[in-house]
Each structure stands twice: as C-alpha cells, then as structure tokens.
C-alpha cells in the first residue's frame, strides 16, 4: 500500500529522518512554516489594514505589537510567509532546473560546447550577484515576478557548475556509451539517462538554492526592489528600517520576521546536510562512525596487573 507520505519513511530521506535528530527537527520546522504559508492568509485576511495605533508593544490584543503603520505584526508575519516561501521555492526550482540542464549538457558534450558554456557560467559566477540583480530589477515592473526573474538569472550558474562536475564524472561510464551506440539523441541522454541518476544531488541543490533564494529575496526587498506594498518578510524588514522603528525601540517590528527567515534557512540546511549524509556515505562524519562502532570499541587500556609474589 502506498500513501502520499511514503517518501517520509522510505528511501534516503526516510533513512535520514530515522537516524538523524537534526533531520527530524529540520523537517518539523519546515512543515510548520509550510502550513503557515498554506492556511495563513485565509486565517488572518487583510494584514495590510491598520488595526491599532502605530508601534504599540506586544499586548494581549496584538501578540507581537503593531508596525509603524498600525498593522498587526503577527498577522503580517503569518500572511507574509506565503509570498516569501513561494518566491524562494520558485527561484530554487528554477535555478536547479536551468543549472542542471545547462551543467549536465556542458559536462556531457565536452569539447567546444563545454568550453563556451563553462566560460558563460564562470563569467556569470564572478559578476557580483546583488548589484546585477538590482540593476536588472530596476528596469522591470516591481513585484514578485521580477524578483523571481532576477534571482534566477543570478543564481543558476552555481548549480550549473555543480551539475557539470557531476556529468563529467559520469560521461565515460559504459551505460552512457551504450546509450550513444543505441542511437539515442544527446537531448535524450541528458534528460533520460544522466539526470535521473542525480536525484539526490537535485534534492540537496534544490534545498540549498531555496535557502540562497530566500536570503537574496529578502535582501532585494529590504532595498526596496520588489513591491513594498505587498506583505512579505522582506518588506516587513524594509518598513521596520524605514519607519525609524529601530531608534524608537520597536524591536517587535524586525525581530519576528528576521527570526522566521533564519529558522526556515537553518531548518533547510539541517535537512539538506542530513539528506546528503544519508545518500552519500563518503560524507558521513567520523561522529557517525563512532556512534556505529561505539558498542564494539575496545575498553580503555589499563596497566598490566602486577601479581605480587608471596
């Protein structure tokens, strides 16, 4: 019998969850925020409306106080989760998809195609991402679509480099040669033969890229790129910094969104590293070996007993 939650108990993710406390903690946090993003906006409705006087400290009526414009901080936090996480995940998925396709193609084809694609990847990697994203975004209409577009533009080369290295390692395998001989096209070999062997890399890269995307997205929104009238964690920080909330001591306007961003990122990193270790035994740290060997370790050395002669 298979259920939709089977992936939690089977395969490498299941193994990571069984073995690793960090993985369980990470998954729990991610699930909590995912739930928040799904049901939050329906629970709180319009988080943009002013409900009380500006910059009120936390109270029974407004658990996390109010913003500089009198909005409820908790409502903004819960409602903002959806947009923030949706943009993060979209960028994560887009950069992995583009990076994997370009990287694997370059590594598999080799020769001058690889040379050209690698040069493109390396040039884009060395250009500083944030200023490039800002300059491109400034010419586009502000909003989440623009943020996704510019972060995808600056983020995919990282993935392309990782996937290219992986494809280089695989291209000389016999089964790739067999596929070539059997008349498969280059495109089919990349998509149907090479990429399916990289699922664990795809998962860890997806998680890592989502972490990158959330951080970069929040940074852009903090600069005022993107639509500052939308409710997201990034714009919450933008308004906290611009409503002089800091210098009036209104810590409750910037601590909750910052903490949420950090928690999501931290949980994803934990999940990713546990998953990585489960799929890639070479990465297992000596800690795990010691745990595994612990029961069989030799007892601590003791001095040879000296038997006194009577």
């Amino acid at each position, binding site marked *: 019998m298979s259920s939709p939650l089977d992936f939690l108990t089977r395969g490498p993710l299941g193994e990571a969850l069984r073995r690793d406390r960090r993985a369980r903690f990470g998954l729990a946090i991610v699930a909590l925020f995912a739930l928040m993003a799904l049901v939050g906006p329906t629970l709180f409705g319009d988080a943009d409306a002013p409900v009380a006087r500006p910059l009120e400290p936390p109270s029974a009526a407004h658990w996390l106080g109010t913003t500089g414009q009198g909005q409820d901080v908790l409502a903004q936090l819960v409602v903002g989760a959806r947009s923030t996480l949706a943009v993060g995940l979209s960028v994560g998925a887009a950069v992995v998809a583009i990076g994997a396709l370009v990287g694997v193609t370059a590594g598999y084809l080799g020769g001058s195609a690889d040379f050209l694609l690698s*040069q493109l990847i390396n040039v884009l990697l060395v250009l500083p991402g944030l200023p490039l994203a800002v300059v491109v975004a400034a010419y586009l209409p502000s909003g989440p679509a623009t943020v996704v577009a510019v972060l995808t533009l600056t983020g995919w080369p990282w993935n392309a480099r990782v996937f290219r290295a992986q494809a280089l390692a695989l291209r000389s395998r016999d089964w790739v040669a067999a596929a070539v001989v059997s008349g498969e096209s280059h495109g089919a070999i990349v998509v149907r033969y090479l990429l399916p062997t990289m699922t664990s890399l795809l998962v860890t890269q997806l998680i890592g890229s989502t972490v990158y995307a959330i951080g970069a997205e929040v940074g852009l929104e903090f600069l005022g790129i993107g639509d500052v009238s939308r409710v997201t964690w990034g714009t919450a920080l933008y308004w906290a910094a611009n409503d002089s909330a800091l210098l009036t001591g209104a810590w409750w306007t910037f601590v909750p969104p910052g903490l949420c961003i950090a928690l999501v990122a*931290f949980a994803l990193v934990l999940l990713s590293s546990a998953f990585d270790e489960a799929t890639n035994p070479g990465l297992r740290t000596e800690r795990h070996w010691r745990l595994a060997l612990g029961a069989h370790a030799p007892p601590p050395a003791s001095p040879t007993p000296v038997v006194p002669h009577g």
Partner: protein
Amino acid sequence: MAFLLRRLGFYALSAFVAVTVNFFLPRLMPGDPAVALFSRFQGRLAPEAMVALRESFGLSGGSLVSQYGRYLAHLAQGDLGVSVAYFPAPVGSLLAHALPWTVLLAGSSLAVSFTLGTALGVLVAWRRDSVLDRFLPGFLTFIGAFPYFFVALAAVYLFGYQLRVLPVGNAYGADVAPSWSFAFARDVAAHGLLPLATLVVTSCGGWVLTMRSSLVGVLGSEHVRMALARGIPRWRVMLFYAARTAILPSVTSLGMAIGFVVGGSLLTEVVFSYPGQGYLLVQAVRAQDYALMQGIFLLITLSVLAGNFLVDALTVWLDPRTREADS
C-alpha cells in the same frame, strides 16, 4: 605566470561582459531612464525636453553600434552620466567619494572574517570531541542563517538605541573633519566597528566549517603522520604541515566570497547609513536613478574582478601545483 595571464584574460572577458550588459540594459528593458526623469520633474519640463534627455542619456542618435562606440569612449574618460538623485552631480564623482568606504568595510570584514574563521576552524579541528567542536559548528550555522542586514538591524537597536555606546550612522562624526590625524582615524574606527562586527559575525561560520572539514581530511594523510612519527611537536605539525595544506580550499573560495561579502556590505551600509556604494544604491533605487545604479554595478564589478585576481595571485604563491602546471 601562464596561469595568472590566463586568469587575467578571463577577467578581461568578464569586464567586457559587464560593460556590454550595462550598455544593453537600458536599451532592451521596458523601463526608460528618460521617462523616469521626465516624470520626476512632473510638468516642469516641456515635452520637447524629452528628446534632449534621451539624447543626453545616449539612448538615441545613430545606430546601436555608434551608440556603443560613444558609450565606450565616455566610459574610458570616467564619464558615467549625470545622477538624478543628486542632480546635477556627475555619477563618477559620487562613486569616487563612496568607493573608499565600501572598500574599507568589505575589505576589512572579509580579512577579519577569513582570519578569525580559519583560526577557529584550526582550533575546533585540533580539539575535536571538545565541547567547542560539538556546539560551535551548529551554532555558527544558525547565526549564518540570519540575513546580514538583520544582524545589523539588531546591532543598531541594541547599541544605538538601548546601550548608546557606539555611534550608528555615517562613517565619521559631524564634529571631526576628514584628515590624516589620529582623532579622525579613531572616529572612523568607532563608526566602522559595528558594521564590521555584524558582517564578521554572520560570515565567519562558513570559514570555520570549510577549514575544519579540510583540516580533518588532511590530518589523516601520510605526510602528517610521518611528521608526527618524526617527533615534531604536535602544534608545529598542525600549523606548518597540516593547516598549510588544508587552507587551500578556503583560499579558493575566497574569490567567490568577495562577491557575497560586497553584497552583504551593501545591505549593511544601508542599515547603518554608512556612506558607501550600498547607501548610494538605495538612493538610486528610490529615485529611479538609472545612471547611478549602473555606475555602481560597473564599479563594484570591476572591484570584485580585481579582488579575484589578487586571490589568484595568492593561490599561486600558496599552491606549488599551479606553478608546476606552467612548466
């Protein structure tokens, strides 16, 4: 030498790409700097001025090729156009005033963070199984999960509002004039301390983890065991045999880190109203000052390329293999 020349060629190519992207952006994207400036001076400009504006931005007149030629010629003279946000100041002089502060902040935070993080990495690898090694990596990963500028916001709140022990905002006080004096240097240091500290706190975790895992790998290698067997003191082996080799991955990622640190430093400047490129960038975004934005992008890109070249030179000095590959 061949290695460095090859890298130099690559950076020249990257610079060319940046310059060309910079040229095509205003011409291919939907936004129009002339329209933005026009709407900023609502009603105060005659419609005919629009034509003149487009011309002054170099957006019209002649074919694309001749526009590109003029653009390059202007660039070579350091002419980056006129700022809208600080009208009528030329972009070039705004950038020149802001550059030293960004180089100071990004450069010193990268240096401190790399040195401190790598040293800590050696320490935790040296004292494996200690309490420090059990908790430090996880703790640093958690701290590293915070956005750079969030830690900066917290620092402004804590030190600027609650404790009022350090100045927040600007690079030096209103009561001191820039000069090569001790008093001025002390003032700059006091103003730079918090931005620097927030950048170091959020970025040094990566260096600790890189150095630790690399060093743990190297410690198992033959040359380290040989050195220990010869009776060389443990600390000497650690520093001059193991760490010397283990630092290479950190140095290699130093080049990649430059771009990130500059990005983080831009955001940190915004929080602290530190008068560098990041602060200018926000003013440019608010005023839709395209010329200023593009100038910042170009200058930062060129600085990052220069920084990467320095890292390459450092790699050649540290890693004999890059030198051998030449002969």
